[in-house]
């Protein structure tokens, strides 16, 4: 296992403050199957950290262990220095979550859903501020089933903030979204970080990891094979003498699209339009 030395990005300003999230020697086995094989990583306060890997790499299992939805087999996880096994309630109170394969009440309005989830933390969230942040302020009285895929994912992001968490976990937040809706979501996630929150997200999109994440952990088959900034990872690879096979084509399908429609695929799409995205089913 190669661990790249953290570079470029400033480390946690004060070494005495614990990282937002520390995962140490985390293992999860189901019988003889090892879903997570002793991984280590730390998420620093104020960064967007990505778990990048294909389906089945163990990303969702890792996130579900951090949220307390699954037990761990061995190792430990600390959220701002709070051990999730010793003080689960305290750790959960500091985490905001957006899960795959989860749903909300079908007959409550968006504002009511947020209030409900807030109450589950003993909090009263400012629902109009949260809906405003994800650009759904005028949908406060809508039901979930009336939303497009992109709107649903944005709502799930607002729902992850009901407890005003310093650490936000997003499990494949953009799966199933079209490029426009995905870019909108990226903007929202950056805004979270810019306001001082820490974000851990999982993704299987290379582009998402490269443009959105400050640092990424590359995960495959339950193991982390590298952790660094996307730029450093690429530079290190190039330094080994790696050359990307170059294929020159006279035009791409995107060029065809622009030629036929007169505009780019990601221009001018209206987020509220029902066609803006499909509901992500999201494989694991």
């Amino acid at each position, binding site marked *: 296992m190669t661990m790249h030395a953290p570079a470029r990005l400033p480390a946690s300003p004060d070494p005495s403050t614990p990282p937002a999230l520390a995962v140490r020697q985390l293992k999860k086995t189901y019988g003889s199957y090892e879903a997570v094989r002793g991984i280590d990583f730390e998420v620093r306060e104020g960064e967007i950290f990505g778990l990048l890997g294909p389906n089945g790499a163990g990303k969702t299992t890792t996130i579900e262990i951090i949220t307390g939805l699954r037990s761990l087999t061995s190792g430990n996880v600390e959220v701002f220095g709070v051990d999730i096994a010793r003080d689960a309630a305290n750790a959960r109170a500091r985490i905001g979550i957006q899960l795959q394969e989860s749903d909300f009440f079908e007959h409550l309005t968006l504002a009511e859903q947020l209030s409900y989830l807030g109450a589950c933390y003993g909090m009263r969230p400012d629902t109009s501020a949260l809906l405003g942040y994800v650009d759904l302020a005028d949908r406060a009285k809508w039901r979930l089933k009336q939303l497009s895929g992109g709107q649903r994912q944005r709502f799930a992001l607002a729902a992850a903030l009901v407890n005003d968490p310093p650490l936000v976990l997003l499990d494949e937040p953009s799966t199933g979204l079209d490029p426009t809706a995905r870019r909108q979501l990226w903007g929202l996630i950056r805004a979270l970080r810019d*306001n001082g929150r820490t974000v851990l997200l999982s993704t299987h999109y290379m582009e998402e990891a490269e443009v959105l994440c400050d640092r990424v952990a590359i995960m495959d088959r339950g193991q982390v094979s590298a952790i660094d900034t996307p730029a450093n990872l690429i530079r290190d690879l190039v330094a080994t003498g790696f050359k990307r096979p170059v294929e020159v084509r006279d035009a791409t399908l995107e060029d065809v699209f622009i030629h036929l429609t007169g505009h780019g695929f990601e221009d001018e799409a209206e987020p509220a339009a029902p066609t803006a995205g499909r509901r992500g089913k999201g494989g694991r």
Partner: protein
Amino acid sequence: MAIAQGAPMSTSVRVGTPAVRGFQATLVSEIKNFWREPSALAFTLGQPFLLLLILNTFDFHVTLPNGEERPYLDRLLPGLIAFNGLNVGLNSIAFTLSRYKERGVLRRIRATPVPTYAFLGGVIVSRLIIALAVTLITYLSGVYIFGAELEGSVPLLVAMATLGSLSFVALGILMVAVAKREDDIPPLFILILMPSMLFSGAFLDRSGLPDWLHWITNGLPLTFLTNAVQEIANLGGGVGDITTDILGLVIWGVAATAIASWRFRMA
């Protein structure tokens, strides 16, 4: 689209503990969910009225255990009130919770600090309030619209029906705890519903049953509840006359709760 530049940093105020606030919010949300679900409303509130309307057209008399001859309606109304307990408790709990489970609603709640008992407590109390409302509606429409004549204490009748539904709530949660999927619920429900409707005495007189069937179905939870409600409403009985039935319901409720708390998982 103008993406909000500032993700709000401090948007939530602490107002209590997850257990207390979660319980209250679940109670209120569940009543809203119930009220906004047309099929739940029709099934729970409309069905007793419809059954009264249909079964009241059977114009015959029944003999009460004390030898008195009374119109069928007078016997049917307490039976229907008991049946509502099964309907609200078992039916609305089992179908709703298993749907929440399958769609990941419970998973989402499980990931918050709200304790499972607080969430389930909110669901349970919401069903008791609904059961109380249905009992009152059935009682009032039976007496004042259809003209049934009942004896006994009305508060005792209402209290018995509401508390009886608690046993069925426990059975409903047990069903969700043992069902592997949402699709397992309907057959499990029918398995309890059919013998309950036919042999509890809620709709049909039990005196004609063969001895062995009578003996077996004595132990059905709906038989206990029907006995108790009929004892109060037809014979003017008090708590002392229905201790066996109360005991039977308590045993069912406690046993179901014990197994459910062992097997129930939010996710």
